């Protein structure tokens, strides 16, 4: 297939060369112009989110290294649930009896706790500082150890779930009173900035952007795993040098010289 008023064929070699950042097409070739435009230096409008990004950076700098702690918590949760399971082995007979008598109201999933001792042991006592697993499987504890988000983060999430005009209206609701008080002003943009500056709930709990809440991870439309959070992001091999270091980024130079 040929293309372009320059008459150069768009074959694989030409394409690969274009993709590598060289521009073998004659000056004024439409495709060269198109790609150059797509790579053009940054505009002010594109950098409008800089303040918010910096605020998030500052907030992260003043919080403890959350992701590692979170992973720790997951491991701890597994360990604890194993211990609980071990304890369950010793006591399952008594528990089954007690549950049958209805004298153990705190046992989660009553029907499941009376299984014979020969099956997988069930955790029977939620830890005091741990939400009770909805289904008492040992592995369930690992996914439920994330602490419930503080009320303000909860409010932020709900606030950000409102679109446009609804946001201002929502702020007049007493329900969001605490959020307005913390943000300092009954102003949508102000509250939004305040919320963006908050530390996020830890990995494994709900994300904070609208539309993605309470959504189970599932494969994306192109078949890639739809996991959210940083865990999967780290699958990317940072050290492979898989980019083109030889071509300075036009947008980079623009952004950097503007200082």
């Amino acid at each position, binding site marked *: *297939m040929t*293309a*372009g008023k320059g008459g150069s064929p768009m074959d*694989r070699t030409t394409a*690969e060369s274009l*993709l590598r*950042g060289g521009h073998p097409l004659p000056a*004024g070739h*439409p*495709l060269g*112009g*198109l790609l150059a*435009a*797509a790579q053009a*230096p*940054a505009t002010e409008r*594109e*950098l409008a*989110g*800089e303040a*918010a*990004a910096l605020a*998030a*950076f*500052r907030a*992260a*700098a003043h919080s403890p290294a*959350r*992701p*590692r702690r979170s992973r720790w918590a997951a491991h701890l949760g597994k360990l604890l649930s194993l211990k609980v399971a071990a304890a369950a082995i010793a006591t399952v007979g008594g528990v089954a009896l007690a549950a049958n008598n209805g004298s153990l109201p705190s046992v989660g999933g009553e029907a499941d706790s009376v299984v014979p001792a020969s099956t997988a042991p069930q955790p029977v006592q939620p830890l005091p500082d741990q939400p009770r697993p909805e289904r008492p499987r040992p592995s369930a504890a690992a996914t439920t150890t994330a602490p419930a988000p503080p009320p303000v983060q909860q409010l932020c999430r709900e606030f950000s779930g409102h679109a446009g005009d609804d946001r201002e209206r929502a702020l007049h609701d007493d329900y969001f009173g605490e959020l307005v008080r913390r943000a300092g002003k009954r102003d949508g943009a102000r509250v939004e900035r305040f919320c*963006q500056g908050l530390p*996020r709930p830890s990995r494994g709990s709900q*994300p904070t*952007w*609208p*539309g*993605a809440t309470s*959504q189970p991870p*599932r494969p*994306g*439309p192109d078949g890639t795993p*739809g996991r*959210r959070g*940083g865990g*999967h*992001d780290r*699958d*990317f091999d*940072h*050290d*492979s*040098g*898989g*980019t083109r*270091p030889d071509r*300075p*980024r036009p*947008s*980079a130079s623009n*952004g950097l010289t503007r200082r």
Partner: protein
Amino acid sequence: MVAPEDLDAVVSEAQSGDETAFRLLYRAQQPALLRYLRVLVGEDAEDVASEAWLQIARDLRTFSGDWDGFRGWTATIARHRAMDLLRSRRRRPQAAAPAEFLTELSAGDDTAVSALELVGTDAAVALIATLPREQAEAVMLRVVVGLDADATGRILGRRAGAVRTAAYRGLRQLAARLAQPEPPPPPEQRRSSSWSSAVTTSATAALREMR
């Protein structure tokens, strides 16, 4: 002008908490991320980019790598946030935001056709966005984000060869569309030229695919 090897140092300075360094990274990477996201989610690109930067700021200390790695890492994060949004759109169908964006393109198509060297960034990205998504993503990640086929393949979950093919097909389609208006038809006919209808048709296809 900051050379890429200097940006390697900037990455590690930002990781140790240097705010100025983080600002540099933002200015260097945000335009590419934003344009890539525009191809994925249209007008929601700014919001998704903001979400991505919150996560980047939060997780930067856990990242290990240089400037090249940083570009791939941030593109991965941006893509995940975009996929979250696309999933939620499928759950709660709403008015198609990208359609408005594409209207801008067709309104500006005279410019795109007659003065291609002067084509604006928005129009260029919008035209790329009309490609089938796998082609559009391959072109954007390679040309705009500046990743090679291997790195792009890791982000898209595809082999490097498949990425090369998708990018090649994308470029070939773009070249074909740009070449269509030759010789230039009279102005009244140009609106209904095959170039416009080709874009419209495949824009619809791209939109369908995005949902």
